């Protein structure tokens, strides 16, 4: 079985800091991979490299066999890559549902020529986007706050909106950066269920998380990262049990 997302020999350093040291990694459709590592290990940087937010020094990333090389972020997203952000990055001037409605991959309202000269197509896309957003809000339990502004909802709900917005893309590969940080209670269960459902629909998922319980419950497999290197790959139990990795994780 070939991987959905293939990362090959990815290298990046900022000045003296190495954040990616020839990383090789495969994300497989339908499976959730947990990315574990201490602060500053390069987890978020790896996501940034995959998304084209940061340019690699060497190496390449492929989605369904197509190389991302030289492509800007928005084109990678249109090919089926979606992500959430460690620091949320929602649109505060928009309501929850409007945050979501920007997300479908094929949605031509960002082309002025289409907006001016193809109103019927825009109306159709707009209706599709709204239906899709309503459906995702329903599935993630966000329907009651669809018309709230994002500053007015709880932090956990904001995290969930971030996940819901990424789902609009109907992506082949989804990267989640600490979806559980600061989240508790009912929202915790909702996010967990959402991620499981997405994986079950055949999406390749990678989750960065410090919450070990969450990783253990959710992930099919784990990867341990330290100083830009992938040190180990295996079941989450194995990684947690490894005394060497635990020492690296908590520092000396």
């Amino acid at each position, binding site marked *: 079985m070939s991987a959905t997302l293939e990362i090959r020999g990815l290298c990046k350093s900022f000045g003296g800091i190495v954040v990616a040291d020839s990383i090789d990694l495969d994300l497989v459709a339908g499976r959730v991979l947990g990315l574990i590592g201490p602060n500053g290990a390069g987890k978020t940087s790896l996501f940034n490299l995959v998304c084209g937010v940061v340019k690699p020094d060497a190496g390449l990333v492929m989605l369904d066999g197509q190389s991302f090389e030289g492509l800007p972020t928005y084109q990678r997203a249109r090919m089926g890559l979606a992500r959430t952000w460690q620091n949320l990055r929602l649109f505060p001037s928009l309501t929850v549902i409007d945050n979501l409605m920007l997300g479908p991959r094929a949605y031509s309202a960002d082309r002025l020529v289409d*907006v001016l000269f193809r109103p019927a197509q825009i109306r159709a896309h707009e209706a599709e986007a709204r239906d899709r957003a309503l459906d995702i809000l329903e599935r993630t339990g966000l329907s009651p706050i669809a018309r*709230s502004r994002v500053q007015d*909802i709880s932090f956990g709900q904001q995290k969930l909106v971030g996940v819901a917005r990424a789902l609009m893309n109907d992506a082949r590969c989804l990267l989640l950066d600490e979806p559980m940080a600061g989240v508790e209670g009912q929202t915790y269960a909702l996010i967990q269920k959402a991620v499981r459902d997405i994986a079950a629909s055949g999406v390749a998922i990678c989750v960065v998380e410090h919450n070990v319980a969450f990783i253990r419950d959710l992930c099919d497999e784990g990867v341990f990262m330290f100083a830009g290197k992938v040190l180990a790959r295996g079941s989450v139990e194995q990684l947690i049990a490894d005394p060497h990795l635990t020492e690296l994780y908590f520092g000396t």
Partner: protein
Amino acid sequence: MDYVYTILILIGLFVILASSFDLVIGHCGLISIAHPIFYAIGAYVSAMLSKQSGMPVPLSILCGGVGALLASALVAVPALRVSGDYLLIASIGFQLGLIELAKHFHEIGGAGGLTNIPSFLIKDFGRETYVVLVLALAVVTVLFIRWLTQGPYGRMMTAMRDDELAFSMLGRNAIWIKVAVFAIGSGIAGIAGGLYAHYFRFLEPDQFGLLQSSAVLTMVVVGGMRTTMGPVIGAIVLQLMPQIITFFNLPPSILGPLQGLLFTGLVLFFMFVRPQGLLAAADLWVGHKPQGDAGHSGKEACS
């Protein structure tokens, strides 16, 4: 009466300029103050086409608009590919450079100005017809921008202003949105330029410099960015104020500096006392009200 017509025409033209500038700087968040140069391009292109090749004026005005639109893309595409901030420098350079060039280009009148531009409508239908035309186009412009910014494209621009990186990650091309908005805003300014040229029938490069830039910026800031009526009110107030001062019959040696002081004072006053302008934009984008669930505030829903 001609005096009143002239003021109405200027108000109409500046409503078009200020509204289209608000689309660029307010709604799209593009920092550029070179708007008047596209007004100038529209004016000169239309004037030259009708004067030299006898093109019918409505067509030449349209060509002026297209000319301004293309010229703006010429500036915006390379600048925005570098970065959003680069547009400010590139567009001011373009503005001042083109004005200098026009001064040394005698075919279009040089520094002395372009005279004898063909008039339009006035001879056959009177000045009031021209006034109606300009004011009608001002209304159309304001309504068009309102329609655009409250529809799906307005949602796009709002999200892009909030967080461009997150916006790109959703598969949206921010650069082309910026280029497109810059172009359409400049194209509208170009049409206004053509309307100016065929009424006043005289153009001079220095009219379209930084003084004009600051006037249009003041209109938008004082009126209120990202509001439908803000730029309209700003344009009216700032057009009328100098006219009112002239009624006091002050000697020109006082009048000139006084107007300058008044503009500066107004900007300073608004910057400190009411930075959002006369009309404040809502900090939540809602767009056209969707039928059925309008007015439903989420606040109660999540408590």
